[in-house]
């Protein structure tokens, strides 16, 4: 036990690279952003009372489970890679990985594979894409932004070859169960999102492994000096992210009962989800809880728009506007603001 805590100490020192925590500003900041978001949701709920009906909440959660899972994946990568967007951690291949994994999963089921082997191979494929990213970033040394951009186009190409840009319908007992209602009359996919969030939050925020991932991302030089295998943790984050993309792919196939082309449209919402989520953290770090909250917020926002019959054409613009507002205000007002 003492060996663990003594090994944790230098890691915590590595975290110092993020700047000393500022509890007061951090708290004000966090509650401020929470209040803003609750206010927006309350406004939506007031105009569209259906928004907060139990059935609708379940639907929003089930819908958010796909982009939320991808958001968790990006959260891991950004945690271990650092927030510098060009040189730090970023995985642009997540959405394309989802597309490829979903296409593979649906094709395997269509080809008559059983649930378990198809699921296993799909998760393995997602993991493989993550491994390719890890290799490119840590062994070859390609900038993550470029490496994952390239794997993104490899995945998208492979998906096209596999599906010829057509929808692959899929059904199986497992998918039926996943798409159905679970305990408390809540969709299974909604439960899946919450359970996944709990597991990952425990992993990232409650274990030495999580602390080391943040340490590596916060200050690689300090982490290296503290004896952490920086490349290993960096690689691990990409591999886990790849695996999570495959999990999201299974959820996506369950949600639409098919693998559909156009997964690349998910890339931008997933980046928004992760970076919007940083406002819920006192140090403006991406956290699992923050990502979950922002996935739900964006989910309710888009859903509220639908209920209010506002054109879906606005959705992208609002998300783009949101991310700019969030980043600009965190720059100017948030904890650790510079200049």
């Amino acid at each position: 036990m003492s060996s663990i805590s003594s090994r944790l100490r230098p890691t915590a020192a590595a975290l110092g690279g993020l700047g000393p925590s500022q509890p007061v500003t951090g708290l004000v900041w966090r509650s401020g952003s929470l209040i803003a978001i609750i206010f927006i949701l309350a406004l939506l709920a007031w105009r569209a009372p259906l928004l907060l009906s139990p059935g609708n909440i379940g639907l929003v959660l089930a819908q958010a489970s796909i982009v939320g899972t991808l958001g968790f994946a990006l959260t891991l990568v950004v945690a271990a890679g650092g927030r510098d967007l060009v040189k730090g951690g970023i995985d642009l291949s997540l959405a394309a990985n989802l597309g490829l994994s979903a296409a593979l999963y649906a094709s395997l089921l269509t080809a008559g594979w059983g649930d378990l082997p198809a699921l296993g191979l799909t998760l393995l494929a997602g993991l493989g894409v993550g491994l390719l990213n890890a290799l490119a970033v840590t062994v070859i040394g390609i900038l993550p932004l470029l490496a994952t951009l390239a794997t993104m186009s490899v995945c998208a190409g492979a998906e096209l070859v596999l599906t010829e840009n057509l929808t692959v319908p899929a059904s199986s007992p497992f998918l039926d169960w996943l798409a159905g209602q679970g305990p408390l009359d809540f969709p299974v996919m909604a439960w899946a999102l919450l359970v996944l969030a709990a597991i990952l939050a425990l992993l990232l925020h409650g274990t030495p492994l999580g602390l080391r991932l943040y340490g590596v991302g916060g200050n690689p030089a300090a982490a290296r000096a503290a004896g952490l295998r920086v490349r290993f943790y960096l690689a691990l984050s990409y591999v886990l992210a790849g695996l999570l993309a495959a999990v999201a792919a299974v959820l996506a196939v369950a949600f639409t009962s098919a693998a559909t082309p156009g997964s690349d449209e998910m890339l931008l919402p997933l980046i928004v989800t992760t970076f919007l989520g940083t406002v819920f953290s006192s140090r403006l770090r991406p956290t699992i809880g923050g990502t979950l909250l922002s996935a739900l917020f964006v989910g309710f926002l888009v859903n509220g728009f639908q209920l209010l019959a506002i054109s879906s054409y606005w959705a992208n613009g609002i998300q783009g506007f949101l991310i700019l507002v969030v980043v600009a205000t965190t720059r100017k007002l948030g904890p650790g603001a510079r200049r």
Partner: protein
Amino acid sequence: MTNLILRHGITVVTVLAFAFFGWNAQGFLSVPNLASVLVNNVALLAIAAFAMTLVVRTGGIDLSIGTAIDMAGLAFVAALRVNLGVTIAVLAGLAAAAATGGFNALLITRLKISPFLATLGTLFIGHSLQQLLADGGNPIYVTAASLPPAFQFLGHGLILGVHLRIWLVVILALAMALLLSRSSFGRRLTASGMQVNVAWYSGLPVDRDIALVYVLAGVICGIAGVLLTAGVSVYVPFAGNAFLLNAIGATFIGTTLSRSHVANVQGTLLGVILISVAANGLLLIGWNFYWQQLATGMVIFLALAFTFGGRRLAGGTP
């Protein structure tokens, strides 16, 4: 030695690609095919990649080059449809693209948002804007009544037997090479790209220069947008995004040509030619569109692996 191989590696790969497709693909080395590759594949990608090169030179990135291209096409077509004349329409297109770049500049230099997130936001907003203005993303055709000869010239014109697009690529390449390597503006940009803090403390007008770069990149994309739209007589929403990945790939492949790994015009042009030749050659060999996508992705991945892996082997930090 490793450096030498690295610096000329992309040239060798490009020559090998020419040799491979010349040997295997019927008609690849014929003059009409190569001319068509230049006009249809290389030219517009080169112009878009020049915009990217300029931004990457300052240490930034522009994910919204496709948006600038689309905005230019949209404004160009909109002006033509209300019969404002080709000159005004071209200016409107360039202005729309410049405004896109100006929006990026505002976000990056005033609000201090990182180029990646700022241009990502612009990409998002541009997507919505096009959906709203183009009725959900429907193509907008240039009506037959509004097709003066000047419009035809923009799309398919020849000067001394050479396509207008090629002339523009050559002029832009020369202008940018001169700007980057011979002007004090170019040296300031390179300084900002390498050590932005040092440049700032040295009293360079970093913010002003970088703002100008994003506007300039927008205008260059505007040229591509107007040429693209004039070439097919229709504005297709989100068409510009197809250039993004290849422009980034070409620009970073091109950095291998430079001793100090900075983005440069010659390298970018070589990268564009490599990507275009690979696409055309694979098409002639009989690979369908889907396999081409996969192969292009792999080519870019390998080129990047070669670039960065070589640098790591050579001992430099990427």
